[in-house]
């Protein structure tokens, strides 16, 4: 077992909500008065976990609460969690940008952090000057930078522009240069936050490769925060999950990612199904979603890639309607419209729907070929595909799992959108 290089003990961080300014002097004075008398800070007792969706009763929240964590040398630890789970706060404390409220972090190595690439870049300075400035900000000495400058310029691929002010650079070049500087830092512990979200695919690959080199080749420790599960899976050896400021899971990569997706699904389930009866001409009821084997699916349940998927519902008509039409919109977890299905797609027309009748509509889609992830469906009922009569927002939410539909062993890349069934052959010719 390799040694523990970083130890986080009972780490908590409290933030004050609302406008800082009004009332702070009185709080400050009260705090000071308690301190003078040797009493505990009165505002530390209050505070709740950081659940943004519910309104708390106090102005103070815990962005992090009692985090305990040990990181071993040479490990690449992934830190995942929803927005606002406390990831960035943890990284900020680790990189000494802000202090903890209670608890401590002990480290056996230098920590360098990469909370954002290109911090301190000055647009008027040339690429070379910025390498020195940025390197020094990140904690390198001039000597260290001088010895590495050719390597850095080479990695960034900006040889031609190196003596041009960075304000003339394309944004991609700036990012590449900045990452190159950061990647050549030599701390024992490197803290990285979402830097891979920038740059083109080729550069991302290069960046991930570099990070792997850092951890595997050079035996340094990396703490990696990301929303990009694919990057987490390809880089990390262990992953912790943060939720509402607490460390809720710690374990192998696959299990942690699964735990995290479970949290996401739970949250998506909480998204309200919103009915909107626009004109009162129709009413929807008995909405059901069925799986391949006609078993009923509950909202939030998971489906497998390639599953058949069926939606049924009844429409009660309160007024004669010409050209009754339907649409299904399927969104991914980034709220991007992935698919738009309408009744005309399979040649169904309802020229007139007669008053007081009830129609049973069923929609079947043979194969779900989206990339595994969480999806939600909006249902739209209207007239002539233009005028809305009745809509249901988030009428069904499901998560799609990879399953055995594809024979590949690795996960489908998260940033792709659709999986197409394909047949591969090889022949000697």
């Amino acid at each position: 077992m390799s040694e523990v290089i970083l130890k986080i003990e009972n780490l908590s961080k409290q933030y004050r909500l609302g406008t800082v300014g009004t009332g702070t002097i009185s709080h400050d004075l009260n705090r000071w008065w308690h301190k003078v008398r040797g009493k505990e800070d009165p505002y530390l007792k209050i505070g709740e976990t950081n659940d943004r969706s519910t309104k708390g009763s106090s102005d103070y929240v815990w962005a992090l609460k009692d985090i305990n964590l040990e990181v071993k040398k040479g490990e690449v630890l992934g830190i995942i969690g929803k927005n606002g789970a406390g990831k960035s706060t943890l990284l900020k404390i680790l990189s000494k940008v802000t202090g903890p409220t209670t608890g401590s972090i002990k480290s056996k190595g230098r920590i360098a952090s990469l909370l954002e690439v290109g911090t301190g870049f000055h647009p008027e300075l040339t690429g070379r000057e910025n390498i020195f400035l940025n390197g020094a900000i990140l904690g390198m000495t001039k000597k260290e930078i001088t010895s590495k400058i050719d390597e850095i310029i080479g990695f960034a691929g900006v040889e031609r522009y190196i003596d041009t002010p960075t304000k003339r650079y394309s944004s991609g070049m700036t990012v590449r240069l900045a990452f190159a500087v950061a990647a050549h830092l030599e701390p024992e512990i490197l803290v990285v936050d979402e830097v891979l979200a920038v740059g083109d695919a080729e550069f991302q690959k290069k960046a991930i490769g570099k990070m792997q080199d850092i951890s595997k080749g050079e035996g340094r420790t990396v703490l990696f925060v990301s929303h990009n599960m694919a990057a987490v899976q390809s880089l990390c050896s262990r992953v912790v999950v943060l939720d509402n400021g607490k460390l809720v899971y710690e374990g192998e990569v696959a299990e942690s990612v699964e735990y995290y997706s479970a949290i996401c699904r739970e949250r998506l389930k909480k998204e309200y199904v919103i009915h909107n009866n626009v004109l009162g001409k129709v009413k929807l009821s008995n909405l059901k979603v069925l799986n391949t084997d006609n078993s009923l699916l509950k909202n939030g349940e998971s489906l497998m890639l390639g599953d058949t998927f069926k939606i049924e519902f009844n429409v009660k008509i309160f007024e004669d309607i010409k050209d009754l039409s339907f649409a299904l919109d399927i969104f991914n977890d980034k709220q991007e419209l992935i698919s738009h299905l309408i009744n005309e797609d399979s040649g169904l027309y309802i020229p007139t729907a007669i008053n007081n009748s009830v129609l049973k509509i069923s929609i079947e889609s043979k194969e779900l070929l989206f990339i595994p992830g969480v999806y939600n469906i909006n249902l739209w009922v209207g007239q002539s595909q233009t005028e809305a009569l009745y809509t249901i927002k988030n009428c069904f939410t499901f998560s799609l799992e990879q399953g055995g539909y594809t024979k590949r062993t690795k996960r489908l890349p998260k940033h792709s959108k659709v999986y197409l069934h394909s047949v591969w052959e090889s022949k000697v010719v």
Partner: protein
Amino acid sequence: MEENSTAKERWLFEITPKNKLISLNLKEVWQYKDLLMLFVKRDVITVYKQTILGPLWYLIQPLFTSIIFTIIFNNVAGIKTGGIPPFLFNLAGVTSWNYFRECLTATSDTFKKNAGLFGKVYFPRIIMPMSIVVSNLLKFGIQLAVFIGFYVFFIFNGNEISPSPYVFLYPLLIVIMAMFSLGLGMIISSMVTKYRDLTFLVSFGVQLLMYVSAVMYPMSLVKEKLSTYSWIVDYNPMAHIIETSRYLLLNDGILNMNGIIYSVVITIVIFLTGLIIFNKTEKSFIDTV
């Protein structure tokens, strides 16, 4: 397990809630000396980029100020400057005062201006105000050279002026001025993070402070003409510093030892207070700024 318990003693550093009064880690600051120099270089290179006159601005500002002071205070108001040409008298005061003013206004903005940078990466924060004080030194050097140029010019034109025999102590005076402005700037910049009102106070206050800092008049004149209010000038350490700088450069006035000692003591107190407050703010300001 056993290995673990022995390893406990060997932590390189620890991050804890801040409670020590002064935790200025000089060793750490020294490690970042390259950063200090690079910040200085950045400031010097970038400040007058894309201006037509460039570093000439360094000269224009003090020259015009001195000319206007000479016209208003000496020609119109009739302030006597002894045997010293009024223009040179004013230029000496303005040059020293400028250094203090530039340092103070720039350092008092440290936290607010660099919030973006400070929010992303750690380095000893004091590097930033220190780099300002150092880079302003260059500007000061240029202005001093201009002053010396005029000095020589006036001597050639038959003015009987000479520096005091103690002129070699002038650099010491600059160090005191640097420390005083750095200390004051650190205090203000720390407080600005919470109470923004101070930003307005600084730009306005510095201007007012100039009038009670004996920049365009000798201290003796205030005692003579406004004896009831002269204590304001007397208690202002900057007035003593400016007065002394004129004594050293132009051999003008008298050396007030008590005043100098008073200024040095105040400077040290302000500087230490600044360090303490700055250190306290350093860790938490990112949550309040």
